[in-house]
């Protein structure tokens, strides 16, 4: 995938581009509205990760330009302010999704992939980790052809793992993915343990491969066979 990262904060900018590259994408960057507009005019991107708070203006300008010239481009908005106005305005203008800073990289990856799936792949969308196949748009999954009976939260969890396959995911980010702001009411992450345990059991029932590896003291990792 060809991505454009529009972010003025250097550390974050470099980190995002690096992360995207390590996932196998092409990631270009812009640090100002002017730079971003230039790039958007010249090139086509599959998706743009767009920060709203830029030194020479608002990312909304870039969003408008993208929607005018290349409306099929997926747009994920980032912002340090979690003001409702920005969020609503961005989504109204046609952004696909919105993330407030600071965010977990895995969360960004997950949402980006969701945007890809929705925009770029027509017809059935599948995530394949033979023998596990997931149909994100249909909220179902099969193992070796047999349907998996998963609760909504379990499916969410599995999808999050799958879209971040091979990545160590901390309990914190898993909690925040599943429960958002409520995550901080869950003191000891026991619930995460419970959900993962159940999910694992259901996966193992159908197949011998333990997709989910525990990283003690940290979290979990999804490993494809």
């Amino acid at each position, binding site marked *: 995938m060809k991505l454009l990262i529009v972010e003025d*904060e250097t*550390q*974050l900018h470099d*980190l995002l581009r*690096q*992360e995207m590259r390590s996932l196998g994408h092409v990631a270009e960057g812009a640090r100002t509205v002017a730079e971003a507009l230039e790039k958007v005019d010249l090139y086509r991107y599959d998706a743009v990760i767009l920060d709203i708070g830029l030194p020479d203006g608002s990312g909304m300008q870039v969003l408008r330009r993208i929607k005018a010239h290349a409306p099929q481009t997926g747009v994920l908005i980032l912002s*340090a302010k*979690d003001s*409702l106005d920005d969020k609503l305005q961005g989504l109204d203008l046609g952004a696909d999704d919105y993330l407030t*800073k*600071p*965010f*977990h*990289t*895995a969360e960004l990856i997950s949402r980006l992939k969701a945007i890809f799936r929705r925009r770029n792949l027509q017809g059935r969308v599948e995530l394949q980790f033979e023998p596990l196949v997931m149909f994100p748009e249909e909220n179902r999954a099969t193992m070796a052809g047999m349907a998996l009976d998963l609760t909504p*939260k379990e499916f969410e969890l599995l999808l999050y793992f799958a879209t971040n396959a091979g*990545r*160590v995911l*901390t*309990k*914190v*980010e898993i909690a925040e993915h599943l*429960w958002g*702001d*409520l995550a*901080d*009411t*869950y*003191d*000891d992450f*026991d*619930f995460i343990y*419970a959900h993962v345990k159940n999910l694992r059991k259901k996966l193992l029932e159908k197949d011998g491969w333990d997709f989910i590896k525990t*990283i*003690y*003291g*940290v*979290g979990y990792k999804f490993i494809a066979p």
Partner: protein
Amino acid sequence: MKLLTKTTLLYWGASLIGFLIAGFLVIQLMGQEMRHEVDEDLAYQQAEISAFLAEVDAAAVVALPMVTTQALPPDAQIDPAVHLRDSTYTEEDEGEVEYLPLRILQWQQTVGGKPYAFTIARALLEQDDALEAILWAMVPVILALSLLTAIFLRFMSQRLWRPFRESLAVIAAFRPHGAQEPHFPASSTTEFAQLTAILQQMTAKVRHDYQIQKAFAENAAHELQTPIAIVQAKLETLLQSRALTDKDMQDIGAMLEALQRMRRINQGLLMLTKIENRQFSEMTPLPIAPVVQRHLASMAELAALKGITIHWKALAEPAPLLNPILTDLLIGNLLANAIQHNHPQGRLEICLHATHLDIANTSEAQALDAAQLYQRFQKQDAASQGTGLGLAIVKEICEAMGLKISYAFQENLHTFTIRFAIQN
């Protein structure tokens, strides 16, 4: 006691003492004057009689009217001096014996060669009568004066002290975070003008300091977001490195958890400043029951995990004027607290009335300290992962929307009650 009352009472007290002393002095002086008059009169009379007696012989003595005569022994020495003194005479009045005051003058004189003692007398006006007369004269005067003074004082006080009372009212309503600068009344009275000047200066300073402090907290929290974001992102990337030992990974995990707390505290502080800034000021009639239900739905899982039974009753369907975002946060925070601080297999009871919402939960903790409850970073359980800002935010929200929050601990239930403004 009000200033006016004090002033009036003091004035009356002083006046009363003054009048009493004056009255006493008047009576004394009048008494003395009367006596003096009488004495002069007697002296004059004595001189006349004496002159008359010098011309006549002894036989005339018998016929003197108003004079008590007493013959002295022929060889008695004549006392040349004239004696004035007080005496009394008795009078019977309806069976009662009265002693009435007299002033008598006594002298001795030879008449026709024979010595005699003479006494003339005057009745003094009864002191009682005098006193009565004076009092009857004075009392109405005093009363009238007192009344007039009181009326005058009251009238003048209202006008003179108005700037002061206005200043008091302004101070009472003063809030450092108020939108408007307080305005203190001008006055031609020196002291009140001084007061106004000083108060104006003082409140300006308080507001200024408050703004600075607030801006600082806001800026600090805002600035912290970026470094926190960077640390978090880099640690998460680091975690993916294959060069780490298990111990390394655990350490990084611990760092990320601590960072999460930092992030949440920061977010909490930012939220507090936003609420204080009245950034969420739009109010619309908002039905409360759906908000509660929505939160209960999203927390159902968590509650089930802890085995908490939830009793939710809506006895009414109030829709007070509220800001949707703040209300969401308010109810969300309270419910989350109620679950978090609950013990396993505990109870959560929510009851919505027409005028208030009760949220009650069981807990292992005993009654909370109501005074400290809403302070920032006050945590019931110091070890818990919470930010300690939940209730501070709740309190700030209530203040922003004009709601009243109260806490009670009864029958093992910690109950928070939110009262809405009564709609007409």
